[in-house]
């Protein structure tokens, strides 16, 4: 049941992508019409029926999308949208009821994740549908306004929207190739075995650095804990629960500082319409560094 609903959710994502392709193909002032509509069509296909396509074919489709993006063939279309005056007027007319659909996404997603076995993703999908119906009801918008606005928002995020999945795929390739082992062997080779302070620093900084490279602290955790954490911290008498818990969040400090964690740092920058796509990371770097130092101190104090 959950798997069927999950696939339905991906079909819905695919439809949103097809809509973006349609607007790119028919838009009067669309630049790079073919490339842009091809990109969103391929993504739509991967979402809707990707599970049933041979994986190497999906890989080839990803290559095509990457080539289109690399040669700047995926462009933002020009969309008609409501004027600031219209929005001010409607905001005053409709009032606080405008918040109901927006909150419905969060409430439905939370409720379903919390009280059913369907999971947070299915919850988000159902929440989005409920919110869509509620927003038609509160605003009196027409269906073509919904399709146009979703295409406009997706064009705004652009090819960056596939980055998180692409980086996860890169992580899978790194794993298959055994990149992690090479790194932890390198750190292990230069570290004296019995210096607890250096060991703790290497464990925390290693987690952060490897997370910066992989974009994912979970991927870093197994590798760095086996290569650095066990010999230089846990075998030196540290409380394993405390040291490992702090190592994981030390990895999150790396997540704050890397464009590889694209869904947190880069895609969200496009969602917030930042001109500088690295601005979120720039703001997070000082906090990430301070927190990493705090992690080293906490591990030395609390784990020993």
């Amino acid at each position, binding site marked *: 049941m959950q798997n069927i609903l999950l696939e339905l959710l991906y079909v819905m994502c695919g439809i949103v992508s097809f809509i973006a392709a349609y607007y790119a193909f028919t838009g009067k002032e669309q630049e790079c019409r073919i490339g842009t509509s091809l990109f969103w069509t391929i993504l739509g296909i991967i979402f809707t029926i990707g599970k049933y396509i041979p994986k190497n074919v*999906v890989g080839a489709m990803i290559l095509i999308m990457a080539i289109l993006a690399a040669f700047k063939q995926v462009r933002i279309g020009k969309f008609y949208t409501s004027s600031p005056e219209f929005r001010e007027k409607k905001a005053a007319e409709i009032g606080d009821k405008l918040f109901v659909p927006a909150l419905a996404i969060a409430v439905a997603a939370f409720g379903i994740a919390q009280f059913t076995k369907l999971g947070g993703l299915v919850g988000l999908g159902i929440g989005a549908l409920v919110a869509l119906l509620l927003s038609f009801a509160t605003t009196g918008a027409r269906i073509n306004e919904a399709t146009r606005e979703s295409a406009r928002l997706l064009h705004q995020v652009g090819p960056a929207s596939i980055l998180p999945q692409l980086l*996860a795929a890169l992580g*899978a390739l790194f794993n298959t*190739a055994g990149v992690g082992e090479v790194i932890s062997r390198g750190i292990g080779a230069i570290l004296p075995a019995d210096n607890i302070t250096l060991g703790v620093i290497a464990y925390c900084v290693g987690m952060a650095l490897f997370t910066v490279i992989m974009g994912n602290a979970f991927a870093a955790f197994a590798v760095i804990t086996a290569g650095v954490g066990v010999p230089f911290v846990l075998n030196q008498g540290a409380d394993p629960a405390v040291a490992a818990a702090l190592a994981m969040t030390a990895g999150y400090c790396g997540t704050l500082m890397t464009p590889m964690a694209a869904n947190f740092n880069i895609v969200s920058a496009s969602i917030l319409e930042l001109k500088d796509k690295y601005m979120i990371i720039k703001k997070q770097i000082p906090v990430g560094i301070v927190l990493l130092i705090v992690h080293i101190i906490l591990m030395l104090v609390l784990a020993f």
Partner: protein
Amino acid sequence: MLKLIGIIIIIVGFALKLDTIAVVVIAGLATGFAAGLSFNQILTTLGDAFITNRYMTVFFVTLPAIGILECYGLRERAAYLIGKMRSVTPGRLFALYTTLRTLAAALSLRLGGHVQFIRPLILPMAEGAAKTNFGELDEKDLEELKGLAGATENYGNFYGQNVFVASGGVLLIVGVLKELGFNVGALAVAKASIPIAIIAVIVSAVQFLYFDRKLARKKSGA
């Protein structure tokens, strides 16, 4: 050592601000070839991971509803409401959001998200609060405000989640340690995650309130 070529390509590519997607794909191909995989094996690994990780991109489904609401003045309304409250500043709003987001994550409440919360609600509220307290922001300050709005979600999301006993991070820690021969309980790991969750809220609040002060000084100086 040759296997690390992918990392070098990533670092150089990002530093030179080349197209991100192209850099990532080339790094993947290079790493695969360096490890002795065939072109077909690389494509299969890429495709397989891309399909498995479709969940990362499900924000697509929220776009139609959010688009309509924005088209009909959602952000204007949020800015108007906060604009009426003089005591709300962008920094205080962000600090409050990070605190609530951390608490929610610690209770495993999935309240939050850049698409669900920050863009439609928190960012326009922060813009409204900034306008009320400090006047119109210039381009540079507005970019910084947006950057902090993006960061507030990440701070709260990251450091609160492991306080929940059954969170993915805690379960992964317990599983990996077990494989390495250390038996620890999920509760002990969750408890050990509490201090840093509190400290993260405090450190980020310092950053947010400092931003308020910067805007205030700029206004009084001008």
